[in-house]
């Protein structure tokens, strides 16, 4: 089993540089991410899709963050896809959740890949074990993945240099929160279990949590 470490995603140290740059006003960089146009404030996906050249214009910092997000989206999409195939998604309301979430995560994967172009990280190999076969394990795992995904996007948002990419990240962040509350309620858990405030996780914390699942095997 391979740990996906921060080093693997942070090829040129851009993530750690980016984190330090936050202390200064790194926003000056966003003016250079040109080709903005009035992309029409419909939704983050449209924003990502409508920006020609944003892949080449995105900073190394933002590319690393997008690839981190893409890794999580690959994971979620494949988890839901397998669960539907192998029965962990179950029937009725639970299956409906899995189908809808799968569609959303796939849309996130496609949007992120489109922005990243050649710089998109390749999909890892996953092994979800019984969690895509067993209905109870499916629910528990979905809750963990969605809750973690929310906190992952939350942690990355302030580190993103491009305002367009930030807008898209915020759009996805709140969708993951929609998912998290949804599957929690299906499992008779508290949808707003964090109370009035939900705190971020750092990239390192998320990668540790993901490594602990053992789902990424190659």
């Amino acid at each position, binding site marked *: 089993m391979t740990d996906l470490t921060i080093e693997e995603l942070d090829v040129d140290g851009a993530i750690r540089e980016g984190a330090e740059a*936050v202390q200064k006003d790194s*926003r000056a960089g*966003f*003016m250079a*991410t040109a080709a*903005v*146009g*009035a*992309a*029409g*404030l*419909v*939704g*983050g*996906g*449209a924003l990502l899709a409508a920006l020609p050249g944003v892949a080449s214009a995105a900073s190394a910092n933002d590319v690393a963050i997008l690839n981190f997000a893409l890794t999580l989206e690959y994971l979620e999409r494949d988890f839901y896809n397998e669960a539907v195939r192998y029965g962990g998604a179950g029937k009725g309301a639970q299956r409906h959740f899995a189908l*809808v*979430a799968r*569609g*959303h995560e796939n*849309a*996130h994967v496609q*949007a992120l890949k489109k922005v990243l172009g050649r710089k998109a990280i390749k999909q890892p190999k996953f092994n979800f074990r019984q969690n895509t076969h067993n209905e109870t394990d499916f629910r528990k795992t979905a809750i963990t993945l969605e809750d973690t995904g*929310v906190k992952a996007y*939350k942690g990355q*948002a*302030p580190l993103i240099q491009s*305002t*367009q990419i*930030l*807008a*898209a990240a*915020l*759009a*996805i*962040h*709140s*969708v*993951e*929160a*929609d*998912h*998290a*509350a*949804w599957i929690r*309620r299906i499992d008779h858990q508290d*949808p*707003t279990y*964090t*109370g*009035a*405030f*939900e*705190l*971020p996780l750092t990239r390192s914390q998320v990668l540790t949590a993901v490594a602990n699942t053992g789902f990424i095997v190659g």
Partner: protein
Amino acid sequence: MLAAGGAGAAGLTLLTDASAFAATKPSVKTDLTILQYALTLEYLGATFYSDALKYAKLSGEAKEVATRFHEHELAHVAFVQKTIRSLGGKPHASEQFSFGAATKSRQAFLETSATIEEMCVETLNGAGPLVSKPVLIGASELVSVEARQASWVRGILGRTPAPFKFNPFLTAAQSQKRLKATGFVK
């Protein structure tokens, strides 16, 4: 425009243009403008849930969400007020609200809750790229809670809890227009 004093209404014209997304540099002035408006939405939410608990004769899960969300919105009010002060601003006093039928029955309560929560999420998502990093960090701690609340209520209503692949966002002008259209602000 909202009547609440000191909300810096003039600065809001910066936020109405879609292309302003890329062109606007964060500033304390923009932060305060946005925070004062966010405060209005939190006052709205807190008062809405308080009124619903008084008038809608809620029970079961509907009562649970009203109770929980009321607590959350009160905490959000305090948080936004504190943030405004930390930037050297003065939080405006709460507007007066009137919810009419929206707080008088279970169904109306749930539907209005979904509407208000969605409006908050979409407004905060629109504001995120415009504010300074510390304010963004704070706002992002609230917005996922609002989204969870919206999802929960939609679930109770039998609607899809996650209607979008990417949640839409509103400019300040769009949000204010939507707020005005509710008729809740006296």
